[in-house]
C-alpha cells in the first residue's frame, strides 16, 4: 500500500436518515473514512450497525424516500458523489465503482444468461460491440476461476452453485476494471470451504488488478485474514478505526474488545463460559446525542449519557470514539 497517496474515495461526515411513520431513524451518523489506492478496508459491524447503508448512500443506491442523505461529502477523485446527478452516478456505478452483494442468487437476474449479464456493463459503459464483449466476458470468467468459461457463458444463474455464482458476481463487478470494489458480505451466504476459495480468489485478484476494496462483514475472522485497515461500526457510527494488526492486538473501544472476546476460539484454550455482551443493539430513533453503546457498556461514565464521544487518536493511525481509556481504566482526556 503506497503511503501518503491521495485517497480514491474520501467520505466526510456522511449522514443518512430514514423517515418512518414513527419518526426519523438515524442510520448513518457522521461517518468519515478514506480509501487509498490498492488497499483493502474492512468494515465490521452487526446487522443494523449501518455498514451497508453507508456504502449504499455514498453511491446513491438507497430509495428516497424513505432514505435521505442529509449531509456530508463523498469525494471520488475530484468529484463529489453526493452532488452528482443521476446520469453521472449511473456512469460511475458498475464502471469505476463495482459492487458485489451478499446473496448471489437474488442479485443475478434468473432470466438472462450469465454471459449476457457480464457483457451488459461492458457494452453499456465501455461501448464494446457484442463480439468484443463476449471475448472479454470469457476472459473475466477465466480470471475468477470458472472452468470451461466459453461454454458456461450461455448458462443461466440457476445452473451454477452458490460459490460459482459469487464468482460470476465478482466477474461482473470487475468487468470495467473499477478503481473501487465494494463487497457487501460477499461470503456470508457461503459455506466455509467455499468461503475459503473466494477469499483466496480475492487475494489473488488484488495482486493482479490492484483495485481498492471495501469489504463489509460481521465476521472478524474474515477481516483478520484479508484487510489492511479496519473500521468497526456500531449504532450507525464508526467507533474504532485502525490498521488490522493494531486493531486485533490493541483494541480500544469496549465494543471491539467485547466482540473479540465473545467469539469462541478454534485453537488454544477453551473458555468454560462465553463472554457475553449484555442487552440488545440500539434502536436508532432520536437524535444521536449520546454514545450508542452506553446501555451495554461496562465502562460507562455519566458523561456518556450527555455527549456522543468524538473520534480521538489513540495510537499510530488508530482512533476510537470513547471516553474510557483501557490503559488507565479511567476517563480519557478529550
Amino acid at each position, binding site marked *: 500500500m503506497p503511503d501518503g497517496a491521495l485517497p480514491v474515495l474520501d467520505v466526510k461526515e456522511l449522514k443518512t436518515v430514514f423517515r418512518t411513520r414513527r419518526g426519523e431513524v438515524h442510520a448513518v451518523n457522521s461517518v468519515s473514512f478514506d480509501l487509498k489506492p490498492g488497499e483493502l478496508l474492512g468494515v465490521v459491524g*452487526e446487522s443494523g450497525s449501518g455498514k451497508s447503508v453507508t456504502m449504499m448512500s455514498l453511491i446513491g443506491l438507497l430509495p428516497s424516500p424513505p432514505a435521505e442523505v442529509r449531509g456530508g461529502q463523498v469525494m471520488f477523485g475530484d468529484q463529489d458523489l453526493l452532488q452528482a446527478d443521476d446520469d453521472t452516478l449511473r456512469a460511475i456505478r458498475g464502471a469505476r465503482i463495482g459492487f458485489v452483494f451478499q446473496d448471489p442468487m437474488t442479485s443475478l437476474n434468473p432470466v438472462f444468461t450469465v454471459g449476457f449479464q457480464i457483457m451488459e456493463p461492458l457494452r453499456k459503459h465501455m461501448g464494446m460491440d457484442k463480439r468484443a464483449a463476449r471475448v472479454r466476458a470469457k476472459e473475466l470468467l477465466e480470471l475468477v476461476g470458472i472452468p470451461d468459461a466459453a461454454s458456461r457463458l450461455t448458462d443461466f444463474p440457476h445452473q451454477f452453485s452458490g460459490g460459482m455464482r459469487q464468482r460470476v458476481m465478482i466477474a461482473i463487478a470487475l468487468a470495467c476494471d473499477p478503481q473501487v470494489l465494494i463487497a457487501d458480505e460477499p461470503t456470508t451466504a457461503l459455506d*466455509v470451504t467455499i468461503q*475459503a476459495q473466494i477469499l483466496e480468489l480475492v487475494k489473488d485478484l488484488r495482486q493482479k488488478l490492484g483495485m481498492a476494496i471495501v469489504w463489509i462483514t460481521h465476521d472478524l475472522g474474515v477481516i*483478520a485474514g484479508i484487510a489492511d485497515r479496519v473500521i468497526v461500526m456500531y449504532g450507525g457510527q464508526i467507533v474504532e478505526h485502525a490498521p488490522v494488526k493494531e486493531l*486485533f492486538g490493541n483494541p480500544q473501544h469496549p465494543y471491539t474488545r467485547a*466482540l473479540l472476546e465473545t467469539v*469462541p476460539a478454534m*485453537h488454544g484454550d477453551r473458555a468454560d*463460559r462465553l463472554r*457475553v455482551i449484555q442487552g440488545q443493539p440500539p434502536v436508532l430513533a432520536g437524535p444521536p446525542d449520546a454514545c450508542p453503546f452506553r446501555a451495554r457498556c461496562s465502562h460507562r461514565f455519566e458523561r456518556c449519557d450527555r455527549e456522543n464521544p468524538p473520534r480521538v487518536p489513540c495510537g499510530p493511525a488508530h482512533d476510537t470514539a470513547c471516553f474510557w481509556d483501557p490503559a488507565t481504566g479511567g476517563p480519557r482526556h478529550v
Partner: protein
Amino acid sequence: MFDYANADRLVEVVDLKLHFPVYSGVLRRQTGAVKAVDGVTFEIYEGETLGLVGESGCGKSTCGRAVLRLYEVTDGSITIEGTDIATWSPEELRRVRPKMQMVFQDPQASLNPRMTVSGIIGEPLDEHTSLSKKEKLARIYELMDAVGLNRDFAHRYPHEFSGGQRQRIGIARALALNPRFIVCDEPIAALDVSIQAQVVNLLEDLQKEFGLTYLFISHDLSMVRHIADRVAVMYLGKIVELAPRDPLYNEPKHPYTQALLSAVPEPDPNLEATTQRIILEGDVPSPANPPEGCNFCTRCPRVMEICHRIDPEFREIAPGHYAACHLHYDHDDKNAGETAP
C-alpha cells in the same frame, strides 16, 4: 470433560437412511432418490452434547429431524431409552413426544405471529397435560424465568421481540414438557454475534439445571468446539468422522474434517498470516447422484485409486474416534494405488 464410563446411552441411531423420492416423466414414476441421510450410526449419552457439523446440504438438519421422527425414515433404527421408534405410527409417537423436543433455526418462522408468548409456550401444555388454567400460567411464568424472559411480556406477540429474545421463547416452548432430549437445529445461525453467546450460555445453563441431552446441529465450527462434548462431521449424507471434541479439533483424521477445520478464518491477523489452508476444489456433488466409492473422492486432496471403487467403512480407529476413510485402514492394495502423497 464428560464422563463416558458411567453414562447411559439415551439415543442410539443405527444405519439411519432417509431418501426423498424423485418423480419425473408424464406418469410421475419414481426415477431416483435424494439420499439426504444415507446410513448414519451414532449414539448420544445421557447429559452430553453431541455436535453435528457440516456444510449446507450435507443432511445434518434432515438427520436431526429424522431422529425425532419428524420424517418417515427409509431404513434403520432409532432407539430412545431402549425402545425403537423408527417404525412407530404418529399416534404412538405422540406419547413419546414430550420426552424429545426441538429448537429451530429461525425464531421468526418457527413462532406463530398471531399467538402471544403465553399461548406459544402453553401450547405443548394444552396438548399433553391436563393442567388447570392457573397451574398452566404458573408453569409458563416458571419457564419464562428459566430462559430469562420478563414475565410482564407474557401477553406480547413475537414481532415485539428481538431475534435473541424470540429464540428464548422457542427454547421455553421446547422445555415446557420437561424433555430429556432436545435437538437444536442451528439455534444461533440467525442471530448476531453479540447475541449468539447469550443464547449458547443459556443452553448450557439449562443443560446443567435440567440434565438435558442435546444434539447440537450447526455449521459454526468454533461455537461447536465451545458447546459440544463429542462432534460428528457429516458430508453428503454420511458421517465421515465422529470423536470427542479435543481429538477431533486437534488431530482430525478424515481429509474432509481437516479441510473444513482449516477453512475457518481465525480472528487473529498474525495467525492468519501463517495458517496453511487446505483449499478444496470444486463443489459438493448432488446427493441425488453421489459418486461411486467414497462420497468425498471427487474433492479429496489425498484421493487414492481404491476410493473410487469402495465406499470406506465407518469404523473405530482410536478409542472413541471413528472415521470413514481408506487412509486409516491397512489395505493390501492401498499403496499400490496411491496417486498423491
